[in-house]
């Protein structure tokens, strides 16, 4: 089973746990584990080209944060050299590196979350508590392709009538504004029609019902329990100060092997599942 085949809530618990630790336990070990885990998962679910470009971009981002941090923060006791009479310290350099890693990890996990928790699953999770907001989101997502079509029609109509043929930016802006205003008027009219129709069919009289076919299976229960236990352990160790890093005035890393190992396992989880599935698939093909 891939992570995306589990119940939406299982995936949500997983991402919440990983993101919480990544964002708020500020230590190089956590940053590395998390970034590597997210990266591996993204690498097996997307094209090599995309992975290469991600790798280049996020290495660059991390490098920029690492190099610039000592320019802004002059704490730390080990000056490497001086810029404008201010110390460029080793401690600040490492702080920047850690910040870069954790930022990269958070962005990559958000990307992974987008791959696993599609809009439908998110609506399933949050729609029950907030049916009105869920309805608004669904309707908005429905409006956007319609807007694209209507915009095309309006633009074509305007072009056919021979208005504003010149290509200057000012004319283009003017034309876009005309079309956009017409688009707004048209969309709101249609919207008001929809609203009247909803009212006529009795929207809001009864509670909204949902049609989804997600089932919470035994495996989901087992995985949620496992994630929660690991998350709780990591939190406890973090509160005891065994998963922390102090950078100023001197670098002091306190990373016990146990919580770091647990967290690394947690991060590698989607990647392992994904690889296991593809091996199974290849094996099945070979048997045929």
């Amino acid at each position: 089973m891939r992570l995306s085949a589990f119940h939406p809530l299982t995936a949500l618990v997983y991402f919440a746990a990983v993101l919480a630790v990544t964002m708020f336990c500020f230590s190089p070990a956590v940053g590395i584990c998390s970034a590597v885990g997210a990266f591996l998962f993204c690498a097996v679910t997307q094209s090599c080209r995309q992975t290469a470009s991600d790798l280049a971009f996020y290495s660059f981002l991390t490098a920029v944060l690492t190099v610039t941090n000592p320019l802004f923060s002059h704490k730390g006791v080990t000056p490497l050299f001086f810029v404008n009479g201010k110390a460029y310290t080793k401690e600040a350099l490492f702080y920047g590196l850690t910040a870069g890693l954790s930022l990269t990890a958070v962005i990559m996990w958000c990307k992974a979350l987008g791959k696993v928790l599609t809009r439908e699953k998110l609506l399933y999770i949050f729609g029950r508590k907030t049916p009105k907001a869920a309805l608004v989101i669904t309707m908005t997502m429905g409006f956007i392709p319609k807007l694209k079509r209507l915009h095309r029609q309006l633009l074509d109509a305007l072009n056919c009538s021979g208005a504003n043929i010149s290509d200057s930016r000012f004319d283009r802006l003017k034309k876009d504004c005309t079309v956009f205003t017409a688009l707004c008027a048209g969309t709101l009219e249609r919207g008001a029609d929809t609203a009247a129709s909803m009212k006529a069919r009795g929207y809001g009289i009864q509670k909204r019902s949902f049609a989804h076919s997600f089932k919470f299976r035994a495996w989901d229960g087992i995985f949620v329990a496992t994630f929660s236990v690991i998350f709780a352990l990591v939190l406890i160790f973090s509160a005891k100060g065994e998963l922390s890093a102090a950078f100023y005035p001197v670098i002091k890393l306190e990373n016990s092997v146990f919580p770091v190992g647990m967290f690394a396992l947690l991060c590698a989880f989607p990647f392992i599942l994904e690889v296991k599935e593809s091996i199974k698939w290849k094996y099945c093909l070979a048997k045929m």
Partner: protein
Amino acid sequence: MSSKKLVSGLIYLLVIPLVCFGGIMFFRERFYSFVTAALAILTVAGYFLHFEKKHSDSTQLVIIAAMTALSVFGRIVFSFLPGFKPCTAIVIITALYMGRESGFMTGAMTALISNFYFGQGAWTPFQMLVWGLTGYFAGMLADKLIKSKPFLVTFGIISGTAFSLIMDLWSCLWADNAFILSRYLALVGSSAFFTLIYAVSNVFFLLVLSKPFGRIFKRLDKKYGLKN
């Protein structure tokens, strides 16, 4: 009913200091970023729940959805001019004609849904909060903003600048876990060009769109009876 409301309000107020305290306990080094993130999420979630409880008819929901779609789509229409987008202006206009509640929801939804296209991230709750509040304040000042053009222009400039400054403040807290003035100034300086474009585009779209929208809403009111 009112006592039930009071209890839920009190619970909500208790959650905030608890979250701060928990953040300090568990995430010593990162407690700034944790607490700011948690507070943004709690505020937006609180407003969403409040919106759920209140009675609102289908017209309001559809108009919020339509305006959100327009503001997200506007980002694509005007994409040939970088940074020049009508989002904030549309949020403000919605608030002017439909009230502060619709303004907040349109702002928050714009941030959420446009990030489905442009990338979700840890910044989403902040964008939701800042855009939502822009709508809320515009709704509060609606009467004055509709009457006076200079006031509307000032509001557009302030909301554009504030959006940029607040997002820079967030990046700063997020990167350093402390407020370092020199980094903040460097961030503000590097984004100054875009801040300027935001402010200019807000004013431009407010001036261009506010009159047609006034007309559109008036007609809708006549035809369908918006305010009932």
